[in-house]
């Protein structure tokens, strides 16, 4: 399901109360006009999974943090910041995998060609 960015925290809290209490992964995909961020949740009793999708424009890249709901979202958000350049509002984020890499270069965007060093 596709929702707006301002409803994100309310939707995820309501799903957690219904029983979807296990966070599988937070992904990012770069379609060239927009970047979409996916949250995959799973219900351990009935084995259902649900995908929540948010579309972001290229000028306006930020997402609110969900670390108060799921403690396991910490390292996923850090990886999202360093690979795509999406800011996380609400806490300070430090790079995870590319500590000695240069600033302002985000490898998983489509504008970064494979083969540049």
């Amino acid at each position: 399901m596709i929702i707006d960015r301002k409803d994100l925290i309310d939707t995820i809290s309501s799903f957690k109360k219904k029983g979807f209490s296990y966070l599988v992964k937070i992904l990012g995909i770069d379609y060239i006009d927009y970047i979409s961020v996916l949250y995959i949740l799973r219900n351990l009793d009935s084995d259902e999974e649900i995908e929540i999708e948010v579309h972001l424009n290229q000028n306006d890249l930020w997402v609110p943090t969900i670390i108060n709901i799921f403690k396991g979202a910490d390292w996923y958000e850090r990886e999202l910041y360093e690979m795509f350049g999406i800011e996380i509002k609400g806490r300070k984020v430090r790079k995870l995998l590319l500590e000695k890499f240069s600033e302002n270069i985000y490898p998983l965007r489509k504008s970064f060609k494979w083969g540049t060093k």
Partner: protein
Amino acid sequence: MSLVKINIGPVHPSTHGLLRLVVTLDGDTIVNVEPHVGFLHRGVEKLAENRMYMQIPPFIEKCDYVAKTAMDEAYVATVEAAMGIEPNERAQYERVILLELQRIASHLLWLGAMLNDLGHFFSVFMWTFADRDKVLKLLEEATGQRMFYVNMRLGGLRQEFPKDFEYHVLDVLAYLEKRINEYESFIENSSLFKERMYKVGVLSRDDAINLGVSGPVLRASGVNFDVRKDKPYYVYKKLNFKPIVLYNGDNFSRYKVRILEIKESIRLIREAFKQMPDGNATGMPIKLINPAPKNKVVRVSREGPRGEIMFYLVADEQRPYRLAMRTPAFINLAALNHIAKGNKFANLFPIIGSLDLVMADVDK
């Protein structure tokens, strides 16, 4: 009261790979553990957008270099789901046999490496390595390669099992059963082992679900979730598979779950050989593969020896548009800070050993 910061650097004989820890201590108890990772990052997700579908399996196999068939099979199953191909029944039985043999080999290496950390300086390591060598010889007979067998094709395997493979496997399994009982009896009788493993590094049930860990770490804390039972694939339903769950959440439960999983795998392989039908199990050669439909989205999860492996694929015609991987050791390491708070400093390395990390899994 003053706090001391200690650096456990990347090259260390006990960290099972390149992992840097900055530990904050108050006297002898741990206050905070902060892992710095990224010493093995090489950009597999970006590489997969520039290669064709059947050129990618060697790169995926090098992510988890201890249990290689598990990653390879998960990727090939994703591509099969995108193109709409299903393997026939004999190919499913053969894949299950290879996966369970790989699980036994991976757990034997974990046992040797963890007992190294506890103080057995390379003695039990040599015995489990000799046993693991026998299982690797079986896999070499079936696939032709010693390490990195790129053996899965779309719809089956690259080649059939050779003649008399069944009798060799059953001989090795009879020998392994006796050895596992020997290991259990002398390891658990030692009182030093019990003092260092009981009630050390406890992870409660609610925390395990909130943090998102998976695999034997999750099942040792009382959560009954296994991908082979809850989202069954291949023929695990016909083989009557039951997951193994323990309820304490400490180091000893994580050790015991893996020992019992080896015994369960031995039983599964024997059943699979009895039930296997006749037929042909070779898959399609590479030249005959059609292009995938555009913009199709597929998601597949499998159970590896370390936890849950998930692939998310957005398909283009000849190469993937986006391949996202969820590897098990990444999120198991993120839970280390939560587990190790409040323990003594000398107990840090058994806790890392019981989480079963492979560092190339963490830095994709």
